[in-house]
């Protein structure tokens, strides 16, 4: 069975005045139908650029330097713009981070929804309006008929994100890329939206790529997880496996620095140092300057290994001894 999305060795580089920035460097992962993949990493680790690369929306000076993006078996890299456009919003949809910024402030909701319908389906205006209204109803917006006539500023942040999600759902896409869509929202709204998106994805068999820096979100939502550091994926695996037994020292550090009730009263652990600048990364493993387990071997590039069947790991000195 082909994966809904299979990314192989994807590299997205930015030619800047200061030098070549490898925002995404040799990244590989896959998502299956109905599966939720959590892509986790700090700010600037290349999560969002990975998402934009999938849609072919990396703006100059950025470019996809290498790799293949196989969507339902077909490679998207190098596909002409009109063909990519036919996929965007149709088979692959994206939800952005900041709901206050994703809707055009001067266009009514119905305009912004109906234009999306018309971009991919040759239907009448009345039919487009019906679809838009149904999508709004589906994401839990009350009295969708009236709300269609509203402008974005008449909605709250949570409601705007629901509208953005409704737009993403209009064509029942096979893949939704969600770029930290709940980061800007209240925790209660966040929980509601998470639950709804999960249900919608499950009902429609949509593959979901959830980009976030919030491990607690991933824990409740994702089936599998990919941890990204400095443009590279350092560890992948099922959510339970990775969160319970992190093998990469970076993943372990991340999980260790989440506040927990069980460790009340002790100092919160943290990863020493700062994320390195993508312009001059350390040779070899990018994490070695902050890693407690690093030694001379880490100056070489670590290769992917598979400690268990469903896990990928990129480290010379992984935590493999959990009983110890």
């Amino acid at each position, binding site marked *: 069975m082909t994966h809904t999305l299979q990314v192989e060795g994807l590299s997205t580089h930015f030619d800047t005045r200061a030098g070549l920035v490898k925002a995404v460097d040799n990244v590989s992962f896959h998502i299956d139908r109905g599966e939720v993949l959590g892509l986790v990493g700090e700010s600037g680790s290349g999560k969002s650029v990975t998402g934009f690369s999938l849609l072919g929306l990396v703006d100059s000076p950025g470019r996809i330097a290498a790799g293949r993006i196989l969507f339902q078996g077909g490679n998207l890299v190098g596909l002409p713009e009109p063909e990519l456009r036919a996929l965007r919003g149709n088979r692959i949809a994206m939800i952005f981070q900041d709901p206050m910024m994703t809707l055009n*402030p001067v266009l009514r909701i119905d305009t912004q929804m109906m234009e999306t319908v018309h971009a991919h389906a040759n239907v009448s205006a009345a039919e487009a309006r019906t679809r838009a209204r149904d999508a709004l109803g589906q994401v839990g917006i009350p009295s969708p008929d009236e709300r269609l006539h509203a402008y974005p500023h008449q909605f709250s942040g949570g409601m705007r994100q629901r509208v953005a999600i409704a737009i993403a759902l209009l064509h029942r896409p096979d893949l939704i890329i969600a770029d930290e869509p709940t980061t800007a929202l209240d925790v209660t709204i966040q929980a509601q939206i998470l639950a709804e998106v999960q249900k919608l994805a499950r009902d429609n068999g949509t593959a979901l790529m959830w980009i976030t820096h919030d491990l607690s979100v991933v824990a409740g939502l994702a089936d599998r997880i990919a941890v990204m550091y400095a443009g590279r994926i350092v560890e992948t695996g099922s959510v339970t496996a990775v969160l319970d037994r992190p093998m990469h020292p970076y993943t372990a550090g991340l999980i260790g620095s989440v506040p927990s009730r069980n460790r009340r009263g002790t100092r919160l652990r943290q990863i020493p140092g700062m994320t390195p600048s993508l312009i001059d990364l350390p040779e070899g493993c990018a994490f070695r300057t902050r890693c407690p387990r690093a030694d001379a071997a880490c100056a070489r590039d670590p290769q992917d290994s598979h400690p268990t069947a469903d896990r990928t790991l990129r480290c010379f000195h992984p935590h493999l001894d959990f009983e110890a």
Partner: protein
Amino acid sequence: MTSWLLRRLIQALFVVLAMTVIVFLGVNVIGNPVDILISPQADQAERARAIIALGLDRPIWEQYGTFLWSAMQGDLGKSFVFNEPALRLIASRMPATLELAVTAVLLSIVLGIPLGLYAGLRPQSLGGRLIMAGSIFGFSLPTFWVGLMLIMVFAVQLGWLPSTGRGQTETLFGVPWSFLTRDGLAHMVMPATNLALGNIALVLRLTRAGVRETLPMDYIKFARAKGLGPARVLFVHVMKNILIPIVTVIGLEFGSIIAFAVVTESVFAWPGMGKLIIDSINVLDRPVIVAYLMMIVFLFIFINLIVDLLYTVLDPRVRLDSRE
């Protein structure tokens, strides 16, 4: 809406009132019309008669009172020179200026916006750079000099275009217009271009700045992620956002083009209001000067009102009633 309009009208009334004082006093400072109007050979008795006939013997506050009283009845006084109501004199010259100003504004929209869009979308291209460099000439070269150069090249050297007057006119609604005849249009080409040059540059730069500012916005990227074509993104999503400052500037510029077409009209001997006001200032024809300035005040108030109303069409976040 109604209460907003009412408030605006009351404000406008005060502006007009303040202007009458300033204009009336100002006109009294620039010189005594009697010195110019009466031949130097006239004797003392003749001189006194003329002063009484013009009403200049009375104290200035009384003159002002009389002026205000008749102004409220729609009478702005008779021209000292033409012995005709000043307002009718101005009205008879208005169509010439109006058609010149409208043509100039149309030119700046038709040329300025597309050039600005191009320069905004391709800021690094040769074309984009040339447009920006050219626009500097557009607003920094003095109008009169450009006018003279146009005449030198196109009328004197090449002999392609006529350089003075309105040419053949055709009557529409009882008013003679130049734009209805071929010859009249030929006469309009140079003065309209001359008048438009600075505005083309202004609209162009404003459009470019708007495009540069809007393109990186999230909602533009979201529109692209929905699968919309580049034309839809540019002409709907970008355009509607940048139109607000452009409409403001075009509105205000339309006012100043009408008010200050003086230079162009003088250079091209265009028989419009600008030429009338210059002639009137030369002979200190007070009623015409006052009437002209009052008319300009009304014009600006009216244009500002229209621009404010247009805002509500362009930007849904603008509501004229504060209570809504």
